[in-house]
Structure formats: C-alpha cells, structure tokens
C-alpha cells in the first residue's frame, strides 16, 4: 500500500505504530501521489464526504428531538423548527443537505462516466460507489417520510406499493414491509430506524470506496496510467487538500444560499400538510433527485414491468465497465462517445423533468422515448461506439504535452483545456 517505509520519529509513536500502523496510514494519506492535472470535477469526492458527515451530525441532533410516531412526528418537527435552539438551522441544513448530497453525487457519477473512471482497473471502486448511491436513495426516501406530511405519506405509499408487483408474494411482502395493512405508525417507526442505520453503512462503504481508490490511484482527465510517484503526480497534501477545500467552500456558499434564503424551494409544499390517509394529493411526486427513475417507472403501462425497468436502470450501471468496449478512458479523446455522453446527460435531465409532470400526453411520450434511449445508450451505444470509434491521439504522459507543447499542438491544447 505504502510506497515507502514510514517510521515515526518519536519513541511512543514508533511503539504505537508497531502495534497499530495508524501513523503509517496517516502518512500514506498525506503523501498519496495524485495526478497533478485533476480538474475541479475531481473535487466532488471530498465534497461528498463533507455532505455525509454533515448529514450524520445534523441527523443525530435532529433525532434527539424528533418523535417517530404517526400522531406526533409532524408536531415534533414543528417543535424543532420553533422551540429547539437553532432547530430550524439544523433541520434546514439536513433537508437541503440531502439535495446537495445528490447534486454532488450526480456530478461525481457523470464525471466518472465522462473520464472513464469506471474502467479497468477501477471497476470495484465504481461498483462500491453504486452501492453507496443505492443506499443514499434508500436513506433519502425514508428520511423524506419522517416529517409525516402529505408527500411523506403518499410517497411512502407509492414506493412501498411497488413491491406488491412481485408475482405471488408481492402483497405479503408489502404488508411485511409496512408492518401493518397500510403505511402506518409501524412503517414510520421502522423507516426511522433504518434511516438512522443506513448512513453508517454508507460510511463503511465510503471507507472501502477510498481504499479501493488508493490501490490503483486516481484516474485523471487525460485518462492514461501514470507512474506514481513521478513528475506527473503531487502529494495529496497540501496540493489536493487545499484545492478540495477551495471547491468545498464554493459548494458551501451555494449550500448556504439554499439553507438561509430559499430553504423550502427544493421540497414540496404539500409536505407541510400533516399526513392524511383519506386525502390523496393531486400529484404525488418524489424529491427531485429520484425523478428520472420515477419517469422510467411510469413510462411502462404494466406495474411489474415498470418496477423491473426502474431497477434495471440502476443495475445496468453495475455492468457498465464490461459494456464499454473502448480502450481509451477519457472522453476527451473520444470524439463520438463525447457527443453521446452529452445526449445521455440531456436524456436524464428530460427524464427528470417529465418525472415531475403528470404521466399523460406529451410527457408520457417523452418519458418513453427517454427511457428507451437511456437503455440504448448503455446496451448499444457504449459497446458499438467503443468498437467503431476512431479516437484522438493520446499523450504519453501528463507533463509531456503540457510542457513541450510543440510535438502535437492539437493534443497539447486539448489537454491543457481540461487541466
């Protein structure tokens, strides 16, 4: 793991490190050779760590005041907002933090897609990342249920009802999930329990994610393997830490803008109406970060088909490293794939948009076209383009085109652009 043997200077340090090499780990993290051309899209890993810690810390404080009971949950949230010191701040950080978390994770995932970070030898990092993403969605969904407003209740009803599509045992499974014959107090209780558990599972996976990252080291915008350490790398500290800190602060300014000035703009106003099993809202919509999947779900006329397709939309990402046949990692040198990448981005945005609209008329058509394209991108476009595409010439090292400049002017310019 470490590139050089680390020996603590102090006697006590050496004594401890011989028994538990924490100091060696610290030295490894500090010296970790990182490609020096990482651009700002690479800062979202650090930002995501910040998001996770923020959610855990604010969540623990909220749990001290929140009451997970169908009759008291809504009132306890209002109690937090009105009577707990800075309760409004903690809750708004937590609720907007979920959105910021997903914003960051989507950028992180699309960065990986653009620069081919999921490809060999980084498949395991990618898969662990997807597991984190799945758990994030579960945590966010259950967290949204906790205030026990109208959208909480009906969102929970819609999502848990998906399991009733499973043949034969579907209804039994749904009843088992609810702990009752509809979404009710037992459902709220277990969702709270799981909502508290999942972030710590995520934390564990994040450790594995970073561990798996430190085996091959970071990918980079050029997408080539680099010697480590070399003149192409910089030590993680202080170069990457300061850059991450700068990007994180910019991110925090946006975050603070939401928290202090438009804290409810990303939520749904119906969730300030207490849950009422007798009144169904006109439109039941999930939080924005789940909308693309919601659109896929509703694009299929058959319930089971919709559920299968929705889950496939996520699980297809798990085999992405093997669907992509291109030897070249970075889309910077893949003129054709690059176009398709942006079409995919637009496709997902369109799916998100129609996910928020009623499933009828033009929106349904758009949802179906978007869904078909989504799968085509992964099943057809990625393997075929990988075979047929003529890629641009790739520089031999990170430093070379930047420093020499003369050899391949076009390449040098392109690389420069990405740095």
């Amino acid at each position: 793991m470490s590139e050089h043997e680390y020996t603590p200077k102090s006697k006590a340090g050496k004594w401890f490190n011989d028994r538990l090499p924490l100091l060696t780990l610290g030295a490894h993290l500090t010296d970790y050779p990182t490609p020096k051309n990482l651009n700002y899209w690479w800062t979202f890993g650090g930002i995501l760590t910040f998001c996770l810690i923020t959610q855990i810390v604010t969540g623990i404080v909220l749990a001290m005041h929140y009451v997970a009971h169908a009759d008291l949950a809504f009132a306890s949230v209002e109690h937090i907002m009105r009577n707990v010191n800075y309760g409004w701040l903690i809750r708004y950080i937590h609720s907007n933090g979920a959105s910021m978390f997903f914003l960051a994770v989507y950028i992180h995932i699309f960065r990986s897609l653009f620069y081919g970070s999921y490809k060999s030898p980084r498949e395991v990092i990618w898969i662990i990342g997807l597991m984190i993403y799945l758990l994030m969605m579960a945590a966010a969904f259950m967290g949204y249920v906790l205030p026990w407003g109208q959208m909480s209740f009906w969102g929970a009803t819609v999502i848990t009802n998906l399991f009733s599509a499973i043949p034969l045992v579907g209804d039994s499974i749904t009843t088992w999930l609810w702990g009752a014959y509809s979404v009710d107090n037992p459902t709220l209780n277990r969702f709270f329990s799981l909502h508290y558990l999942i972030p710590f599972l995520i934390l564990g996976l994040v450790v594995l994610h970073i561990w798996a990252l430190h085996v091959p080291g970071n990918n980079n915008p050029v997408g080539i393997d680099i010697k480590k350490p070399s003149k192409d790398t910089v030590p993680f500290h202080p170069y990457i830490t300061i850059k991450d800190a700068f990007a994180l602060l910019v991110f925090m300014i946006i975050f603070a803008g939401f928290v202090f000035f438009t804290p409810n703009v990303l939520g749904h106003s119906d969730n300030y109406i207490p849950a009422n099993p007798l009144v169904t809202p006109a439109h039941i919509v999930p939080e924005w970060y789940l909308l693309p999947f919601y659109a896929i779900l509703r694009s299929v006329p058959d319930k089971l088909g919709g559920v299968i397709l929705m889950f496939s939309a996520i699980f297809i990402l798990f085999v992405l490293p093997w669907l992509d046949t291109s030897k070249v990692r970075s889309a910077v040198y893949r003129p054709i794939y690059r176009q398709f990448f942006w079409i995919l981005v637009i496709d997902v945005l369109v799916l998100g948009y129609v996910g928020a609209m009623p499933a009828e008329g033009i929106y349904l058509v758009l949802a179906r076209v978007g869904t078909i394209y989504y799968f085509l991108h992964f099943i057809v476009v990625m393997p075929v383009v990988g075979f047929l595409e003529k890629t641009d010439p790739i520089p031999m090292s990170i430093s070379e085109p930047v420093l020499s400049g003369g050899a391949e002017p076009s390449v040098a310019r392109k690389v420069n652009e990405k740095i």
Partner: protein
Amino acid sequence: MKRSNLRLVYLIILFIISLRPIQSAEMVDPIKVDWSFKGLTGTFDRASLQRGFQVYKEVCSSCHSMQYLSYRNLGEKGGPEFSEEEVKAIAASFEIQDGPDSQGEMFERPGRPSDKFKNPYPNVQAAIAANGGAYPPDMSVLVKARKGGANYIYSVLVGYEDPPSGVTLDDGVYYNKYMIGNKIKMPNNLSDGLVEYADGTASTVNQMAKDVTTFLAWAAEPELEERHKTGVKVIIYLVLLTILVYLSMKKIWSRIDTEV
C-alpha cells in the same frame, strides 16, 4: 475556460429550476405582492404583523386553529414584538382548559404566555361538523403548505367573485378565482371596515388581507428574520474564507509547473 464544463453547470441549473412545475389549468396565477419579508434581507413589517394578529384573532380564529404557536411567540424577536404586558394581556383574554386538578377535574383558567394558541374546536371532527364538511386547516404553517405561499393566501382572501354564468354552486360553496377548481367552502369573511385598527390604519379588505397574510407568513417562519440575518453573515464569512483559501491554493500550486 472549459466550454463543456460551463454547459454542464448550465444544464444542472436548468434542471433544478425546472423541478417545480405541475399546475392545473383552471387556476389563475396568484397576485404578486411586494412583501417586506421578501429577498435576502427581508424583514417583517412590525405594525402589519400586529394588525394581522388582530385580524386573525377577530376573524380567522373563530374557525382556524394555530396549534403550534404559543402566546409567548407574539412577544419574541422577529415577530409582532408585543410588549411583555401586552402578551400577558392577550393570553389572559383566553380561557384555557387545564387539569386535571387534585380532584381529577378539568378546569378553566385565564391563559398564560406559555400556553399554546387556543383551538376554536375541541377536535378535528368538531371543526369539520361545524363547517359544512370542510376542515378549516390549521394556520401555523399554512403559508409554507401552499404553492405560491403568501401571494397565494393573499390572493384567495381577495379573490372572491360572483361565479361566471354557467357555473352553479352548491349551498355553502363560494367562487374564488385563485382557488384550485375555483370552489371554496370558506365564505368571504372580509369586508371594508370589519376590524378597527388601533393604529388608525384604514381597514380595507386589501389592507386586512395583506396584514393577516404577513402575520401568517411570520407564523409559518418565525425564524425568517434571524435566518436572513445569519445567512448574510455566513455568506460573507464563507466568501472571505474562500478568497483566502483560493490565494493559499495559488501560492501552494505555484511551487509546481501546473496551473490550478
């Protein structure tokens, strides 16, 4: 710089903006009011809050509860800021049920600042029964619970009209052009001169609607002023820190040949 990067940022912003659509066709867009509490440094108009409370107390509170507010809130910073004596007097003007006492009996006593706002009905069912089958919603967070917020509440209050020809209304249903479906079970309770404002402001329908909506906006977000004030400080702090970190970053990266 990186054109593709800008394009992505643009797309993401577009995406977030496009997230709050969905509206039924019949609804008219609410009137846009220039609220004092709008914007980054918005604060409540203190006098309007006090008048709004008066409208709430004399008109709305006969049907609508505000169960998450306490009388003490009326004297707190960022709210109507009634004086301590005024808050005590307001609270004492309500008979609150307390108990059980040592004999196991419930009893009535004058309200205290620590009491929650008194409910007009003993329970939801009673409220529904007394209002022709429609529950007058609790108003504690009403402004946050409606799309359009304060503008929407204000619009509904001033949006009563005679129904257009061809629209027939059942008994106890009224026509309101800002309401979803245009039908509302709450009668038009505001009329010019309905309340007598202590500060001499003319109590027109628009004035009362504006005052009571301001009051409801505060009730839904009593932290708004503190939030705005803290937010400005936090952003200034973060911007300064960001500049310092940016300069440090430039300095550190100047040791190597790569630009950051």
